[in-house]
């Protein structure tokens, strides 16, 4: 019996032994949105950066609000998000420095092919939202403080409507983009989505693009543009962040070469993100 106990102990100990860290390269913690991670863009871009600077970029994929909150507590080194107002506030509070434009894509309104609220052919998102509210057709909101939710809220405001989560047709989920799309698909609901995540999941959804066209160029509503920015966490406020590596990351992400690679990342022949850095525009 003693031998058996010793065996159990040995197994547990060996498991513990394996837990010792083995990685030598420096770590960089990137807090970002589910759209950049779930679409596969970061998997496509990052190996180049990791090889160049012998580092390991660790991605925390959450909503924009949570990504900025992680940065504001000094628990990430750099954030890549899509909410210009919140990014500006993040810099103004002293939590972030060196904010740069990175890229953009656009939001689209998706919903059931049968389009019960008749939003097809709307000129603007606000008009389409008004029709959804009028028809009390089911609408799924991210509800997680993400950049997408901020955009959605702005559109409801432009339409002069305050959607009520207790009304029975407006669902505030508190979930990521993928979850929300799956929910909308199951429930036959409308939702506002970033084009990238929608395209990468299109085959798994019974949802059609009802406003926004087949490509970004065909999107009729300029209000649906979705700009991404990168911000380093301020070392003056959070002394433990890896600021030097974060700055190298920002420089690399906005460089003409990486921007070119962003354009090369396509799904079904069309880019999911379009380069937008100062260096790219000045090339």
């Amino acid at each position: 019996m003693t031998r058996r106990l010793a065996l159990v102990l040995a197994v547990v100990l060996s498991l513990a032994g394996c837990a010792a860290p083995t990685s030598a390269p420096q770590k960089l913690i990137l807090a970002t949105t589910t759209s950049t991670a779930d679409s596969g863009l970061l998997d496509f871009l990052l190996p180049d950066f990791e090889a160049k600077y012998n580092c390991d970029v660790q991605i925390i994929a959450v909503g924009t609000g949570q990504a900025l909150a992680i940065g504001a507590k000094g628990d990430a080194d750099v954030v890549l998000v899509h909410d210009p107002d919140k990014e500006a506030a993040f810099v103004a509070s002293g939590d972030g420095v060196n904010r740069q434009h990175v890229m953009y894509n656009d939001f689209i309104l998706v919903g059931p092919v049968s389009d019960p609220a008749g939003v097809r052919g709307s000129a603007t998102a606000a008009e389409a939202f008004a029709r959804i509210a009028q028809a009390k057709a089911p609408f799924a909101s991210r509800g997680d403080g993400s950049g997408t939710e901020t955009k959605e809220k702005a559109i409801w405001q432009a339409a002069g409507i305050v959607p009520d989560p207790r009304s029975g047709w407006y669902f505030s989920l508190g979930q990521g983009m993928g979850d929300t799309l799956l929910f909308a698909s199951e429930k036959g609901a409308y939702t506002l989505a970033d084009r990238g995540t929608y395209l990468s999941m299109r085959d798994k959804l019974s949802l059609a693009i009802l406003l926004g066209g087949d490509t970004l160029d065909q999107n009729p509503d300029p209000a649906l543009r979705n700009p991404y920015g990168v911000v380093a966490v301020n070392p003056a406020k959070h002394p433990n962040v890896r600021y030097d590596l974060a700055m190298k990351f920002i420089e690399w992400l906005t460089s003409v070469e990486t921007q070119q690679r962003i354009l090369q990342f396509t799904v079904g022949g069309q880019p999911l993100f379009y380069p937008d850095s100062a260096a790219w525009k000045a090339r």
Partner: protein
Amino acid sequence: MLCGESKRRRCAINEIWEGLKQAALLLWHLDPEVMHIVGVSLRVSGTALLFSAAIGIPLGAWLGFSRFVGRRLVVALLYTGMGFPPVVVGLFVYLLLSQSGPLGSLNVAWVPRLFTVGAMVVAQVIISFPLVAGFTMAAVKGVDPSLRQQLISLGATEWQATLAVLREARFGVIVSVIAGFGSIISEVGAVMLVGGNIEGSTRVLTTAIVLETRRGNFSLAIALALILLLLSFLSNILMLRLQGKTA
């Protein structure tokens, strides 16, 4: 493939069937990514279990033997700990270990940083040690109390008598450790919060299942779920075998 409204049920069945097939393939080929996730799960929960056994078994034995003022309060706290929502543990550990938190801001080597396996181990120890202690206490109390008195009257030291009682209660003690393992290997909320679900680093079976479901990769999610089920099945088999040998 687009699931039409009328074909949805058929699609769901296909999804499960595809998941089972893919699970078999992933296991058969020992897919490196899946094996890595399984490895991280076992390492994190194994390490946590080691710590919670080191804390929980002595604590449980002590509570089982001793009589002191306030013992009832300690036991009540322990029972509360056994039913404590893991996600709340995750929240507290998150706030403690954050760079802006009371422990994280110390910036010393023995405090693991947020979004590391160390942080996940801390959360899992807090979740599992009350279970280990509670089950150990019950097992120790199940041993005939006269054994301990007899041993001491025969000249055994306090320490020797305690070890003898623990040996007598060994099955219950092992069950306590396996119960602790079951509670943490299948836990998702706390490890998601404090680990951050980082690919290749802090991604474990449960958080990977959440992520793949979120991405709509149901086949992979089912495959991972089957592996998780297999692991808890194996730990139960181990428990039953030990029971057979010792009973």
